[in-house]
């Protein structure tokens, strides 16, 4: 990635160059396997309770208290965690939209009973969330 050389006598130019240094280039994800794609149909779906409980159980990694506070009072941050995840999941499930675009498939020539046969796949679908 080319980083612009600032004009060192111009403060705004130096600040802009420093900010540009923090930009992380887009890194593409590794491709999905057929098994991963096909198994998607069997996925259980999102659960706010399950996500929140996973987060709360990992709180100790960041040094946060799990369960009631030392004085016995309820742990508000845990309650907040449940509310936060519930709202996020609700928004994703109720408002989120995925538009699927199908890219035309490649032509392949498998051998059927000793003779080549042309099969055109139905294409690969990509979803764009909004």
């Amino acid at each position, binding site marked *: 990635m080319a*980083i612009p050389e*600032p004009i*060192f*006598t*111009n*403060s*705004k130019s*130096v*600040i*802009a*160059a*420093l*900010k540009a*240094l*923090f*930009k*992380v*280039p887009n*890194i593409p*994800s*590794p491709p*999905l*396997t057929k*098994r*991963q794609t*096909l*198994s*998607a149909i*069997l*996925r259980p779906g999102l659960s706010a309770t399950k996500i929140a409980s996973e987060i709360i159980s990992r709180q100790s990694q*960041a*040094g946060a208290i799990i369960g009631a506070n030392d004085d016995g009072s309820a742990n508000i941050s845990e309650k907040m965690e449940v509310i936060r995840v519930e709202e996020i999941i609700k928004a994703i499930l109720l408002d989120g939209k995925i538009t699927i675009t199908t890219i035309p498939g490649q032509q392949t020539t498998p051998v059927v009973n000793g003779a080549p046969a042309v099969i055109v796949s139905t294409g690969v679908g990509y979803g764009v969330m909004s």
Partner: protein
Amino acid sequence: MGFIDDKSDIFNEVAVNRALKENFPELNKTRSLFNSVKSKQGNLIPFLLDLLVEIGNKSLKEDVFKPLLEKSVKWEEEIKDTLVENITNFYVKNNFSLSGLTQPILDVKIKNIDPKGTLKIDENSDIGKFYYGENQEQLFNEVNNVTPNTPTVEFNSNIGGNFTLFLRKVMKTGSGKWKDIFLFEYDKDTEKLKVNLLDTNTTFEKFIKKSLNSIKLLDLSTLFSNIIDVVFGTVSSLTDIGEGYIEDLLKSKELINKIINKETLSETEFNTYDDSFFVFTKEEQDNIRSKKEAIINGNNLVNLGCGQGRTFVDFDSFSESFDNINNFRPNLVKKSFSNFIDNLTKDSTANLPDEDKESSLIKIIKEFIDSIIAVIFQQVTQPFVTMILQFIESILNDFGLGVNLTNPNSSLEVGGIESFIINFREQSTCIIKKIYSLIVEYLFNIIKSEILNLVARKISRIIKEKSLQRKEQAERAKELLKDVNNILSFINAGT
């Protein structure tokens, strides 16, 4: 986005990247702790230093300040080039031949080419060495058989020379020859110096280049004493010119800051400076006065976080290290230099509780680095450069629109570094901008490499995360398919 918001964003990015790197968020440090972020001033050096401290991988003293000082003396050529370019492009737009010059080319009061007042100090005194820098006695040739028109002191070495020390000798003997460029005559009664040019068969531009190349502009030893002076006022407080000199230092430092703040926020390349720019407000005057009194009373200029502490930096603290720098072989200079900085910072924080020592050390180093522009600028204002500028002033009728080759008198009174800046404002601005840009570039490159390290760790984390995500998805898929098989087997077994 605004200037301050942009600076805040950079601190936030550092905090986020550090949190990721360390796995534990450390976002509780609010940016309001940093005055340099909230500052509207254009000078970015305090901001860059705070940023380096916040990133936290480099020692300001070992990795930034010591290498900066070593590097700064190597900026000599760049600063000389800037001087030549500005003189030839701005002051004298048309290059011209010097063959028509009337000798002497300059007849000037010695004080008007000596803004720092160095020439008043005996070079052989205990403190003289701090002002004159590198001892070059072996390069001077004192001519014994004095005849009319024969100079009594000659400096003939081809390498860059200590002109200030040479001039001091000229003042004692009455005349001197500087390489094959200048012939000087000094009248002790009138304290006036006549400057004659040995070779007028040249152009103005060639003369300026040759002249500046004949001197050593930046010297490690004078750089050193200047730092101590600018930050602590220690050396000058030992001289009889101390009090006025300290005030002049503080005023010039303030003016340098004002110029930097104006230039760095300006959208245009050339700015004009009228006289009102150089007038201090009452607040600025009070600030300068209180700093001056603090220095005279032996207090540290650096705010150590618990008010201004009494400094333990005195003459003896650095005298030995200073001698080592001047007299040792070049390969030992670096070590002596490093020891000097260590002793200086140790002495400065000696009286503080242990828990305050580290943060105070950082503050002192920041103060040192922030003062470097004033320190280097002081070296540039040495008698040689001032003499050249006085000569240009004397021959110019109307700033580049015409020249008068028969006028050796400059009417400019240069009573200190402050008046140097005011009288030669175009040159001063240009030099200050150059020094500032070199320091900012130096700090920027260190920060750039640190930020790129942080970002590289972030990228590596993202890649690892994505690969782990796919692995987990594959395992999940395997698990789901296994579940389905089990259910189907169960159903089949029941039928």
